[in-house]
């Protein structure tokens, strides 16, 4: 909340400040320093009709966006094998590809597609991964992302997050009092976006349930904020709280039974936890300063939150057993909206630098207190971590519009997501879907 309000105020100042600061913005046009070279050969297809999706392209795009891979241009391929027996390792060694992905697509009797795929290690000439999936045209992108996940995991040793989803809010402003707020659900690469909730009043703070089946968010429908939970598949909604004053920033507990949220019903913004099963509401923080933006530690035993109890917005952690509060950030006069990596060792947050609009995404190692600033654009906001911890998605500005961008956890790889109409904000990266 603090971030957002300050952001609004600062966007005016930004118009003036932008040209002056532009020189200091370093463009990172490329990915990691030494990406793994991989060749994804167009998949074989014997059918008469055109395929609904170019699977090999989806895989190559996924891998390239991760920044850890440099896919080989199709034009340079010396051969286009589709079966394991067709692979000539020498061709790929000459081209410098360390890994090779091939596949073939066949059609089943019920008009669905059967995809077989193989991943080779070119250097030691072995198949290191393979699979076969059957599905209709509507899941072709899912199959592509699943192949990308396999390659990523086999090569990096870490689970891929290409099959995950994102939620984000768009605001399409027609006139002063006529804005369409939409809650969108899309693939992690921004494709296949669909609106799951729409309102003329603001929609804020989407948060995933740990099983990725439900979303919690704040909606101002009826003119007042309330916290809602919606089933993504069925669209079924339930109102969780609607107290007078603030009802904001819901965050799902790792076990899925509780929601941490911010209420001001006792006169001032404090953190509460609502048990979704019993309906019991527990006040966690009690302070005349503003406490907001709670997020759970992965063990579910403590929460991190933003508070200005020390005179400036900083990140604190509260132990839910004994309500002991400990400050975590010490660098700078503004650190807010923390999200925790799944290993519980690092936080991602919004850190303010020296310039008026210098709001950047930074990663804090909790143990050492080391803060790494990942982005260098202006007014970066609302970071959310991929479930494998390798990438972060966040909201930023391009021109005078809000867009989504992603950055790797080491800050080396950046890309922007295909922008949709209107202002895009508050992305939330889903947990693993299975």
């Amino acid at each position, binding site marked *: *909340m*603090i971030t957002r*309000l*300050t952001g609004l*105020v600062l966007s005016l100042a930004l118009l003036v400040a932008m040209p002056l600061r532009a*020189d*200091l913005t*370093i463009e990172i*046009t*490329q990915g990691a*320093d*030494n*990406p793994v070279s991989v060749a994804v050969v167009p998949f074989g297809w014997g059918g008469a009709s055109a395929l609904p999706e170019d699977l090999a392209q989806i895989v190559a795009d996924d891998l390239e966006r991760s920044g850890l891979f*440099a896919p080989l*241009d199709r034009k340079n391929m010396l051969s286009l094998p589709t079966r394991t027996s067709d692979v000539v390792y020498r061709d790929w060694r000459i081209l410098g590809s360390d890994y090779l992905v091939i596949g073939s697509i066949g059609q089943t009797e019920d008009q669905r597609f059967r995809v077989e795929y193989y991943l080779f290690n070119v250097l030691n000439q072995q198949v290191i991964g393979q699979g076969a999936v059957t599905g209709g045209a509507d899941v072709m992108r899912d199959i592509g992302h699943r192949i990308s996940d396999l390659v990523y995991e086999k090569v990096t040793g870490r689970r891929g997050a290409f099959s995950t989803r994102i939620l984000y809010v768009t605001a399409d402003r027609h006139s002063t009092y006529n804005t369409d707020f939409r809650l969108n659900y899309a693939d992690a690469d921004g494709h296949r976006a669909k609106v799951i909730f729409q309102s003329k009043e603001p929609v804020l703070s989407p948060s995933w349930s740990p099983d990725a089946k439900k979303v919690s968010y704040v909606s101002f429908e009826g003119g007042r904020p309330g916290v809602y939970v919606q089933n993504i598949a069925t669209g079924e909604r339930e109102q969780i709280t609607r107290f007078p*004053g*603030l009802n904001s920033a819901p965050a799902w507990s790792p076990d899925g039974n509780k929601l941490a949220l911010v209420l*001001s019903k006792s*006169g*001032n*913004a404090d953190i509460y936890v609502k048990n979704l099963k019993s309906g019991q509401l527990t006040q966690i923080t009690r302070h*005349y*300063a*503003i406490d907001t933006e709670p997020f759970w530690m992965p063990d579910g035993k403590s929460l991190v939150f933003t508070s*200005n*109890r*020390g*005179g*400036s917005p*900083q990140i604190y952690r509260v132990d839910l057993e004994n309500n002991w509060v400990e*400050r975590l950030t*010490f660098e700078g006069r503004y650190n807010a909206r923390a999200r925790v990596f799944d290993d519980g060792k690092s936080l991602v947050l919004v850190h303010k*630098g020296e310039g008026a609009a210098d709001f950047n995404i930074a990663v804090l190692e909790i143990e050492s*207190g080391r803060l*790494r*600033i*990942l982005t*260098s654009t202006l007014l970066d906001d609302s970071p959310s971590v991929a479930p494998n911890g390798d990438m972060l998605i966040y909201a930023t500005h391009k021109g005078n519009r809000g867009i989504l961008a992603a950055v790797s956890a080491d*800050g*080396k790889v950046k890309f922007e997501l295909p922008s949709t109409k209107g202002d895009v904000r508050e992305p939330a990266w889903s947990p693993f879907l299975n």
Partner: protein
Amino acid sequence: MKDRMFFFRNSPAIAGLFVVALAQAEVPIVESSPVNSNGQVQSGNPAVTSSRVSSRPSVNAPGVAQDSLYYQLDLLQQEVQALRGLVEEQAHAMRMMKQEQRDRYIDLDRRITKSSGGAGLPAGDPGSTNATKSPAIAPAVGGSETGSLEKQAYADAFELIKSRKFEQAVASLNAFLTQYPSGAYAANARYWLGEVYLAVNNPEQAKEAFKQVLTDFPEHRKAPDAGYKLGRVYVTLGDKAKAREYFEMTVSTYPGTPSARLSREFLKEL
């Protein structure tokens, strides 16, 4: 809400107005609690009277006292917040100092143990200064293996760029290039040196750095970026002909790269 609160707290002018308002509110007693517990500024219109307060027997004193109590409470809250911040920061600084002291001691202890028990080291070996030093500094990275040391040195320099400590980054990158002139990260280091020179408004030096990437590492992944950036540098320097030359070179030599695309866009505008 937050902004309003900050505004109020940080504005002595408004606090001053409030005192004036108190002073003027003589007979129609004002129920003006300008800051409620929510931190919101309430309508500070002194003409709004409260029947509850004005019906009290002693007209002036309780209301004013109450208001000034609110005011003092607010000041106290601010004061406590500021002090809390200071205490937190100092406690943190002390923890860091303790940690650092312990680390230094452990490091020193290790070096002393090494040098007193290190009879195995050949004294006249030209590399002996390095040999005694490197295990103490980098025991975690597996002895004195140059690859990982180089990677670490590059990562450290890159860290400085990301945290925008540009002057330090220039020094660090130059030191890196002196030590590992043909290492695996030499092209990257040179490229980033160019970027940093651009950031600190030193296009001449940036030009040299980018040119070296192109001449020494024409096949490297950073080469197309360097070509594009050289074009940009010449645009900055006002040499459109040279800029065009480099943009065109990038487009023709490195087709299909993002830099070629960016160069093409710039060519349109030149």
